[in-house]
C-alpha cells in the first residue's frame, strides 16, 4: 500500500514538470511567439518545477516553436517539432 502511495507521488512530481512545460508552451503562443518574453518570465517557480537543465530544455522547445510561429504569420501551422504553432494576431 505504501509502495502505491510512493508511485503516485512519483507520477505527481513528474506531472508538475509536464504542466509547467506545457503551460510555458501555451503561454509562448499567446504572446505572439516571442520567446524573449518567456525568457524574462523565468522564475523560481519554473526552476523548482523543471530544474536548471529542464528549464533550458523547455526554453529551447518553446523558442523553436515560436520561431516557426512567427515565420508563418497568421496561419495555424504544424511546427517542425510537432507543435501546432498558432499566432494570435
Amino acid at each position, binding site marked *: 500500500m505504501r509502495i502505491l502511495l510512493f508511485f503516485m*507521488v512519483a507520477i505527481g512530481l513528474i506531472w508538475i514538470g509536464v504542466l509547467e512545460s506545457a503551460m510555458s508552451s501555451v503561454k509562448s*503562443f499567446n504572446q505572439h511567439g516571442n520567446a524573449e518574453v518567456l525568457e524574462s518570465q523565468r522564475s523560481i517557480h519554473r526552476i523548482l518545477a523543471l530544474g536548471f537543465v529542464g528549464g533550458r530544455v523547455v526554453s529551447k522547445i518553446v523558442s523553436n516553436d515560436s520561431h516557426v510561429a512567427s515565420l508563418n504569420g497568421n496561419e495555424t501551422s504544424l511546427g517542425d517539432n510537432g*507543435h501546432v504553432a498558432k499566432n494570435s494576431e
Partner: protein
Amino acid sequence: MLSAQACVQSLISNVLAKFGSTSQKLFLMFVLAGISYGATGLGAMLLMTLLANSQLGKDASSKHGISAHDSSRLGGLAIAIVILIYTLGFSLISPYTPGPARDEAFLYLWCAIFFCTALGFAEDVKPDFLTPSLRLAVKFLVMAALFGLAPKFIPSSVGISIIDSIITLPFLGWALVTVFAVGFINALNMADGANGLVPGIAVASFGVFFVEYGRPMDGALLFAFTIFLIFNVISGWYFLGDAGSYGLGAILLGYGLLGVAEGQFSAGFMAALFCYPCIDFLVSVIRRRRAGRSPFSADNGHLHNRLHQFIKLRIKSAVMANSFTGLIISGSTSGAVLIAYLMDVLPTESDLWYLFFVAEICLYLIALNYFTSIQPKTQYADPL
C-alpha cells in the same frame, strides 16, 4: 611523482568512501536529479528507485558484466514509463502533436521500437524465455518491415562510393540497411556492460538530436536518460536490461538514419557518435570467430572489461570502478563528439567526421592492445 599519485588515489578513495552507504547514495542521486530537473527529476528518480527495489527483473551480480551487486534489469521499463507520462501529458495539455500522429514514418518507427522493447522485456522478466535465434529472427522481421514500409529511413548516400552504389539499389539497399540495423541493436546490447556506458552514449546522442532539432520527444528522451545515467552511475543498482538496450538501439538507429537520409547529419558524424558499440561488436565477433566460438557467445574480452580490471586495482569502491569505466569510454567517444558538435568544430553534414571516427578506432585498438598486454587472459578472451 609516486607520492603525488598516492595522494590523488587517497583523495579519490576518501571522497568515494563518504558516498559509500545506501542512504548517502540516495541523497546524492536525488540532489543531482533535483538540481538538474527540479520536481520532475525528483519524481523520475523516485520512480526508478521504486522499480529498482521490486523483485521483478532482479539480476544476480554474477549474471551481468562487471557488476559486483545484485541489480534490477528494469531500467528500460522505468525509462519507458517516464517518457510515456511526459509525452502523453505534454500532448494532452499543449498544442504538441507527437510524431507518430502526424507522420506515417514515425508511426512505423515507434511500432518497431515498441516491438524491440517488448522483445527485450520478455527476456528481462523471464531469462531464456526466447531462444537467441528466435530473438534475432524477430529483430530481422521488425527491421525489414520498418524499412519496407518507410523507405525514407534508408539514406541515399553515406559518403563511401562502394556502399553508395549498393544502397541506391532498391532491394539491396533495403537488405543492407536491415542487416546493419539488426547488427546495431545487438551491438548496443553487447556494449551495455558497465555503469554509464550505454546511458552515457544515449545522453550524448539525445543531447545532439535535441540541440539540432529541438523536438519535445528528444527533450523527453534526454531527460529520462539523464536521470537514468545519474541513478546508474551513482548506485549501480540498475541496468537498462534487454528492453532498454533493444529499445534504445531502435530509437538511436531510427533517428540516426533519418538524420543521414535527410542530409542533416553525415554518416561519418553518426559513425563517430556511435563508435564504441559498433567497433566493440565487430572486434568481439572477430575475436570469437578466431577462438572458434559463436560470434554471439558472451565473454569478458571487451575493452570495458579490460579497462575495469585495470581501474578496480586502483579504486576500492566496486561501484565507482564500474562507473568510471563506463564514463571514461562513453565520455571519450560519444561525449567527445557532443563537445566537438557544441563547439562547431565541423559542420554536421561534413564527411570529415570519418576522420574523428578513425581516430576513435585507433584509440580503441591501442587501448585494447595495451590492456591485453598487461593483463592475464580473461575467460575465453584471445588477444587481438
